[in-house]
């Protein structure tokens, strides 16, 4: 028997967005602390989403797509952001001793996580008991055999990138990791790979890695670029639920 304080009767209309404002606020407040109603609400929201399927798809006029493709030209240029890796001296680029130690630990965990990830599911985000996440990256058609993943510490302040299958580049080029948030791309690392096509680096980010939604790896001039200019060789969502 539901508790009288529950809002079960309001949930169907809440899912449809047809409650009055004060009732909607009442439901939102209640859902914050009631898992029973949250579960029910989720069910009704699923039903509401499925209602859109009842509508027959309709062909838009062909010129609409042309308008769309014209509109996006120049509508969203990547905003210049400072590349944290470039502009630093070679000395500054060297990781301090503690950094090397933690990076080694992270990379060891990475190798372990990579093996685990490959065994379990290529698309699942692996989560260690300590809260560290290993987020797999996708290869693109540029280098289809490339693999990689981003390791993110529980608090998001530390992270590492491990890649495999990326061939070493010529002296004029390096790989660069980009952290994506809304329309901005921030450099997270500039790195090279060894003759075995393997590489790893610590991720440098201003703020928490949990604030970024996606990452990509591009080929850039040695030292890195202020914004992505080269082909994308790896990318993925940096989803931290």
């Amino acid at each position, binding site marked *: 028997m539901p508790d009288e304080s529950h809002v079960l009767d309001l949930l169907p209309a809440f899912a449809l967005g047809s409650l009055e404002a004060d009732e909607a606020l009442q439901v939102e407040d209640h859902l914050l602390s009631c898992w029973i109603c949250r579960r029910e609400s989720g069910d009704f929201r699923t039903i509401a989403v499925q*209602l859109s399927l009842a*509508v027959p798809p*309709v*062909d*838009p006029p062909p010129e609409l797509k042309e308008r769309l493709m014209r509109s996006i030209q120049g509508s969203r240029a990547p905003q210049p952001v400072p590349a944290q890796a470039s502009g630093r001296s070679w000395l500054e680029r060297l990781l301090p001793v503690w950094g090397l130690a933690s990076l080694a630990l992270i990379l060891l965990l990475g190798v372990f996580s990579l093996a685990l990830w490959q065994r379990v599911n290529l698309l699942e985000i692996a989560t260690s008991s300590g809260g560290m996440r290993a987020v797999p990256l996708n290869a693109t*058609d540029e280098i289809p055999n490339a693999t990689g993943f981003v390791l993110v510490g529980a608090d998001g302040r530390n992270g590492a990138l491990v890649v495999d299958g990326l061939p070493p580049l010529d002296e004029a080029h390096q790989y660069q990791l980009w952290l994506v948030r809304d329309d901005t791309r921030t450099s997270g690392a500039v790195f090279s790979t060894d003759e075995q096509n393997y590489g790893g680096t610590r991720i440098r980010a201003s703020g928490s890695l949990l604030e970024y*939604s996606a990452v990509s790896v591009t080929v850039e001039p040695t030292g890195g670029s202020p914004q992505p200019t080269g082909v994308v060789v790896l990318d993925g969502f940096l989803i931290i639920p």
Partner: protein
Amino acid sequence: MKLSVDYARYEDERLILLVVQLRPEALDQLYERYGRLVFGLALAIVGDRSTAEEITLDIFMRVWQKAASYRADKAKVSTWLTHIARHHAIDVLRRQAVRPDQSALSLDEITPDGAIQTQDPEKLAEHLLLRERVRSAISRLPAEQMQALMLAYFGGYTQSEIADILQQPLGTVKTRIRLAMQKLRELLSEEQESEDKSTRSVHTYSISEEN
């Protein structure tokens, strides 16, 4: 190093990532897959082709500009698109303050033609099956519940507004909407269970045949 890429073979989530990388071809492909769905939904809500075109354009421009805000752990791409399309269409109606007395969607228009554009037969079949189940469930609702539901979902009206439109007591409208949604949940759940049983029995049969 630049290769020719067949975007049609990418999963939706992968296309979103490519949009994040500013690849117009990925947006083009998403439009190919979901342009009809978004346009059809917008048209059903606003009832005007020209406005529905602008809404469709806005939605895909938003995808281009805000693809990085998509959360794959929260919703499928199709769900995300229909969610923002519905809300945007209802916002447009409210801004225009010219709303039809009834939802622009006629129940007669719920016909079995049309589907998402995909090269994956399994996904297409799954989508068509779900569509058929939803349509079937809606058609089994009592007429007065269906009417209230349509006004709420496709018209974006509040329950009080629906009571005014239908000239029914507010309590009656609340009951109709609640019962309609509960009935849909029950019907869709029944059909899902029935489908699961059917799949299991086919699977069992296949295994025993192999043995």
